[in-house]
C-alpha cells in the first residue's frame, strides 16, 4: 500500500509540476478571495485582522475543491481511469497517494495565503507551532475527505457541480475548527486555547483517512 501511495503521489505531483494548473489557476483564485475581502472590509485593519482566520480557511476550502477536481480530472481523458483500474494498484494506496498529492499542493497554497493575511490583513502570528499543526491537520482532513468525495463524483457527468455540494457541507467542521485554532494562534481570541480545535482537526483527518483506506476501492468500483 505504501509503495503504491508513493507511486501515485509522485505521479500526480509530477503532472502538476508540468501542467502548473494548481499553481497558475488555483493559487491566484485563493489569493483573489483574500484581496476582494480586503476591499469589502474597508481600510480599517482591525476588522480585517479579526476576520483573517475565517477568510483563510474559506479560501483554503474553496481551493481544495478545485485541487480535488483537478486530481480526478487528470484521470479522465484518454481512458486513464480505466488504466488506473487495470494497473494493479492497491485502491488504498491510490487513495492515500492522491490525498497526499492534494495535501502537498494545499500546503504550498496555505504558505502563500498565510503570507497574504499577514501582509494584507496585518495579522500577527503568536504561536507558529499551533499555526503549523492546525494547518497540517486541517489540510490532511480536507485532502482525505475531498479525495473520497472526488472518487464518488468522478464517474458522473455532473461531477464538477456535484463535488462542491457533497464536499463543502462535510468540510464544515474543518472550517470551524481551523478558524478557532487560528484565532487562538493569531491572538485574536485571547481567552481560549486552540488545543481542543486542533484535536477536532486531527480526529476529522484520522476518520476520513481511515474511511478512505477502507471504502475507496468499493467506491471506485461503484462509480
Amino acid at each position, binding site marked *: 500500500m505504501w509503495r*503504491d501511495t508513493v*507511486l501515485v503521489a509522485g*505521479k500526480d505531483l509530477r503532472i502538476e509540476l508540468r501542467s502548473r494548473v494548481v499553481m497558475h489557476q488555483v493559487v491566484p483564485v485563493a489569493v483573489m478571495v483574500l484581496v476582494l475581502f480586503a476591499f469589502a472590509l474597508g481600510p480599517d485593519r482591525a476588522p480585517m485582522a479579526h476576520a483573517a482566520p475565517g477568510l483563510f480557511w474559506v479560501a483554503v476550502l474553496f481551493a481544495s475543491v478545485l485541487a480535488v477536481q483537478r486530481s480526478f480530472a487528470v484521470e479522465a481523458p*484518454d481512458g*486513464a481511469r*480505466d*488504466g488506473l483500474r*487495470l494497473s*494493479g494498484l492497491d485502491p488504498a494506496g491510490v487513495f492515500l497517494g492522491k490525498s497526499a498529492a492534494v495535501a502537498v499542493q494545499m500546503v504550498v497554497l496555505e504558505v502563500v495565503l498565510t503570507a497574504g493575511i499577514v501582509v494584507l490583513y496585518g495579522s500577527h502570528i503568536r504561536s507558529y507551532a499551533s499555526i503549523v499543526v492546525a494547518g497540517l491537520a486541517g489540510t490532511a482532513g480536507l485532502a482525505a475527505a475531498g479525495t473520497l468525495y472526488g472518487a464518488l463524483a468522478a464517474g458522473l457527468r455532473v461531477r464538477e457541480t456535484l463535488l462542491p455540494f457533497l464536499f463543502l457541507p462535510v468540510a464544515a467542521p474543518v472550517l470551524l475548527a481551523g478558524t478557532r485554532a487560528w484565532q487562538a494562534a493569531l491572538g485574536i481570541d485571547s481567552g481560549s486555547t486552540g488545543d481542543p480545535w486542533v484535536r477536532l482537526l486531527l480526529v476529522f483527518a484520522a476518520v476520513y483517512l481511515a474511511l478512505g483506506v477502507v471504502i475507496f476501492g468499493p467506491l471506485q468500483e461503484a462509480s
Partner: protein
Amino acid sequence: MAPAVLLTTAVCVTGRFPALAGVDLAVAQGEVVVLEGPNGAGKTSLLRLCAGLLPLTGGEGTVLGCDLRRDAPALRRRVGMLGHAAALYDDLTVAENVRFSAKAAGASVSNLDAVLDRLELGGRVRRTPVGRLSAGQRRRVALALLVMRRPELWLLDEPHAGLDAGARAVLGELVSEVVGEGATVLLASHEPEASVPLADRVVSLVGGRVVGVRDVGAGVARRSGAVDALRSVSGSVHVA
C-alpha cells in the same frame, strides 16, 4: 487445462440496451482469437467484460479462473488492455508513463530502454510528453505499457489502428512472442487482412451475440508469415 476465457450466455447491459445479449465463448490458454463484426456488434464490450471493466449482468463468466462477478479486481491485475483510448497521462513523458505503469503492476523496469527502442520510442521521443505525440506514437506507447507488464491475457481493441507497417510488424512479433510464453490474446479488429493472419480462430459477433466461429488454421505458421510480410513492406523494423 482450464480455458483462459469461458463465457456462458454472458449478458452485459450498459444503459438501456444489452451490449452483450448471451455470448457463449471459450478461449484456450495460449490461443489467439480475433473478434470481428460490424460497429455496435459488441466487440469492445466483450473485451471490457473480459478485463473486468464492465459488469456481467447475466449468465456466467470466468476469465483466467476469476469469476467475473466476484473477482474482477483480482482479474484486472492479470490482464492488459489496449483500448480505443491509450490510457496515458499527457503531461508525463513517454518513459515516465511506461515506468509508472510497470511499477504499478510490480513489473521490472530494467528492460525499459530495450522496449522503447523496439517500439521506436527511444532517443528524443522517450523524453517527450505524451500529449505532444502523434496518434500512432501514442498507440506505440500504449503497446509499450503492455509489453512491460506482460499480462496473462492481452485484450487488444483495434490494435492496428494508427500504426504504420513497422509497428504492425512489431505487434505481430509480440503476439507470437507472448503466445509462445503461454499468454492468451483476444483481438477485436475491422482489419481482417492484418488481424486474421495472427489468429487461431475468428469469432463473428452481431448484435451482442456470437454468430459464427471459424478455425483459420495453424496460428504459429501464419503469424510468422504475416510478420515476414509486414517486415518486407516496412523494411525498417527495429527489433531489440
